[in-house]
């Protein structure tokens, strides 16, 4: 039985001629998990709002065609903070329950159960103000509040990007548990995730349905993935490289495929001289660090995270990633680096300037920083003006157009976007505009706080290319991130933060190997996809190249299960202090 029927739906927003949805038709069966994918601006969010009955009532505009939904709809939007209606975290969940007649005590009890269900059970959120929560916690809180309305259809619009590994695993577990019981519409651009959980996919492109089919049918089709702005699922990429006969989409299926082969084809397609080999020894390795954080302590007077005894160095041409769970202190570190905060103890020296002695506005000419949600600070009439703003304010207008164009190409923004109003762009493009606006000063140091949140696959590729370009020019780059696939792709070195202290530090290929799964999991950090697959088949790997190489050389894996109990490699963390109490 169909739970959602969308029949020839077209829609345009008020005062525009452009059809955001153009003759969209598809059905969703009861209990099905349907993945909705497409490039930025394809109409995914608008379609979700149409299914939820919010179009055109809330948005205005013209809607034609019909949308029929069996039962109540709950929707969690991409913007985490914008959908919270209460001030206290607990009230956000109890309020819809009390609206539906629950007594105060029952509502509180059920709210705690729901918070536990979405993975916020152990985080003592009950009495906290909603703005005190991290973005990931806000998303999960919105999910708990939505579940409190007991929806028959649950719509999740691009919510996974804000979650750390533990929270993400929790939501995936919830989706799997709900399989069959609740109809789910999942808007995501993570092909690996979609391959793991989705029953079917609908690909939207410029407001039209480009393709409908199972993940097995669509994710293996390069043309469809390109149209949908999706990457290759990790399992599929590994299977192709290993020339496996099947096309696995889940870790289990990959393991079965590897076991089924018995003996892997010799040679595989490993690239022993791949780019990671080059990155291990950048030509500036012996240069003086551009970022020097020495024994830094920082603490907020309230419950927000603190840093303790932090040491960190980033050299020219090095991309350094800071990993850590929600509240580990990553964003605090970013603010220390750009001078918005000053350390209580220790020193932060960036590009030979002590951040305590220079105004952040002056420091920003040498240190480009993109804070989280920087896309929400855009205010100029055109993208061109937005990118040029930092230079105009400082009256550095020589060769301005050239510099704007250079940085536009660096971040991969199309030229026809320059005259557009940045506020009307999809979030993925706004993020790239914010990045370009920071880089236009041609800095010596770049600091990016969770730069991939909200980016599409194409956007991530552009970001990776931009980082590679900066790296080749000798710029020192520090990024905070919780997606280890991104870190493995772009970073040379890693610092793992745990409750404000350095838990581990070293080259990315040593710290994110599959043999460190337990150690990383304890810090709520997931392995990169290749590491997950390696762990499943009992070999040690960090990247796809490692995996192919290891499997090509290894005997057939034991079918009894993953060998995650193998000892860690010889290279140990530079520092691994025991986490102390307090902090986050």
């Amino acid at each position, binding site marked *: 039985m169909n739970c959602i029927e969308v029949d020839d739906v077209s829609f345009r927003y008020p005062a525009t001629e452009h059809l955001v949805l153009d003759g969209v038709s598809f059905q969703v069966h009861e209990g099905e998990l349907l993945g909705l994918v497409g490039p930025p601006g394809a109409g995914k969010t608008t379609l979700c709002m149409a299914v939820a009955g919010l179009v055109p009532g809330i948005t205005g505009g013209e809607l034609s065609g019909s949308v029929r939904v069996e039962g109540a709809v709950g929707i969690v939007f991409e913007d985490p903070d914008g959908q919270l209606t209460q001030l206290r975290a607990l009230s956000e969940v109890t309020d819809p329950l*009390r609206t539906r007649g629950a007594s105060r005590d029952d509502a509180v009890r059920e709210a705690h159960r729901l918070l536990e269900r979405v993975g916020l059970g152990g985080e003592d959120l009950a009495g906290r103000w909603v703005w005190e929560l991290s973005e990931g916690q806000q998303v999960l809180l919105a999910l708990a*509040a939505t579940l409190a*309305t007991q929806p028959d259809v649950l719509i999740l619009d691009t919510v996974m990007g804000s979650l750390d590994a533990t929270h993400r695993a929790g939501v995936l577990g919830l989706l799997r548990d709900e399989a069959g019981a609740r109809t789910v519409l999942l808007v995501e651009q993570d092909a690996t995730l979609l391959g793991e959980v989705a029953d079917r996919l609908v690909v939207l492109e410029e407001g039209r349905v480009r393709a409908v089919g199972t993940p097995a049918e669509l994710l293996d089709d390069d043309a469809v993935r390109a149209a949908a702005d999706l990457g290759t699922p990790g399992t599929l990429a590994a299977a192709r490289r290993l020339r496996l006969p099947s096309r696995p989409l889940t870790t289990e299926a990959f393991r079965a495929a590897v076991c089924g082969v018995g003996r892997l084809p010799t040679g595989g397609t490993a690239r022993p001289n791949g780019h990671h080999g080059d990155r291990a020894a950048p030509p500036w390795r012996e240069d003086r660090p551009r970022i020097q954080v020495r024994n830094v302590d920082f603490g907020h007077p309230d419950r927000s995270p603190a840093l303790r005894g932090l040491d960190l160095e980033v050299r020219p041409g090095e991309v350094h990633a800071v990993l850590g769970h929600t509240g580990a202190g990553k964003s605090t570190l970013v603010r220390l680096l750009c001078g918005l905060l000053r350390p209580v103890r220790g020193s932060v020296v960036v590009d030979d300037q002590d951040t305590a002695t220079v105004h*952040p506005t002056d420091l920003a000419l040498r240190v480009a920083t993109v804070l989280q949600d920087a896309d929400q600070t855009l*205010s100029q009439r055109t993208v061109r003006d937005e990118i040029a703003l930092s230079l105009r304010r400082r009256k550095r207008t020589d060769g301005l157009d050239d510099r704007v164009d250079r940085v536009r190409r660096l971040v991969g923004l199309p030229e026809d976007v320059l005259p557009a109003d940045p506020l009307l762009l999809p979030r993925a493009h706004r993020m790239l505009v914010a990045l370009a606006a920071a880089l236009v000063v041609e800095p010596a140091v770049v600091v990016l706080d969770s730069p991939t949140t909200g980016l599409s696959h194409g956007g991530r590729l552009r970001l990776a290319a931009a980082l590679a370009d900066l790296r080749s020019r000798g710029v020192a780059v520090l990024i905070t991130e919780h997606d280890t696939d991104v870190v493995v792709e772009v970073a040379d070195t890693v610092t793992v933060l745990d409750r404000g202290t350095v838990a581990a530090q070293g080259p990315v290929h040593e710290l994110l190997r599959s043999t460190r799964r337990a150690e990383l999991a304890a810090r709520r950090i997931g392995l990169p996809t290749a590491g997950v697959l390696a762990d499943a088949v009992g070999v040690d790997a960090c990247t796809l190249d490692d995996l192919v190489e290891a499997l090509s050389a290894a005997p057939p894996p034991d079918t009894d299960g993953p060998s995650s109990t193998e000892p860690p490699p010889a290279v140990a963390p530079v520092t691994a202090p025991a986490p102390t109490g307090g902090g986050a």
Partner: protein
Amino acid sequence: MPSRVPVLYRDHDTVVHRRDPRVKVLLLGLLFVFIFVAPSAQWMSLAVLGGLLLAVLARTPWRWLVVLWAIHIPTFVALILIGGWGSVTSGDWAGVIDAGGAHLRLVLAWTGAILVSVSLFSTIDPDDLSRGLRGVGLPAAAAFGLGLAYRLLYTTLTETASIAETMRLRGLRLEWRRPIRFIAESVQVSLPVLFNVVRRGPMLMSTMQIRGYSQDAQLGRLRVADVAVLAIGVAVVVGSAVARWGPLPTTLI
């Protein structure tokens, strides 16, 4: 990194905190009626005394009171100067003092309003505000809207702080020591704040529509102490009205 927003509410267990949110909402309503009705400075001083008593009982943060009161000092001075401008220009300082006396009722009204409202708001859990409004009969949608506006006040402060940080990195110095430049630059910060509020509108409306809101405030019956507090408030307002238009004297002493 969590944002830090100055929140007026203080989570204490005091006799004022324990009062029903409906009573607090009604007391705020009575306060504004009283301010317009009170016939003299002496009657108006009741609001100030009541506010001070509330502030002490509710353990209201004194910084909030001082800051909010101090903000109005220029207004007080302006009122006195405008009223006694003739005396000022002629050097008649006794006349200025007379003008100050004439405006004392207004100064006391302002002071009383600050003391009472800040003290009451510091004891109303923001999430109980819309419940209290519903409890006094405001339609659910309106009560929810007002509660939401209260929430937006705080989240807009959060956003303003966060946007100001990014703007500082993009060339706005935002330094207090250059007040004129600070004001001009603040306008530039306000634009993205405004855009965000506008952009958020449809999402909040969507969320409200989907989650729903009910008319039932689920507050139960008022306690004896609540009724007594309310009765005192009503008595003061009625007394001031009778003093203004009826037989009671307009001076208390």
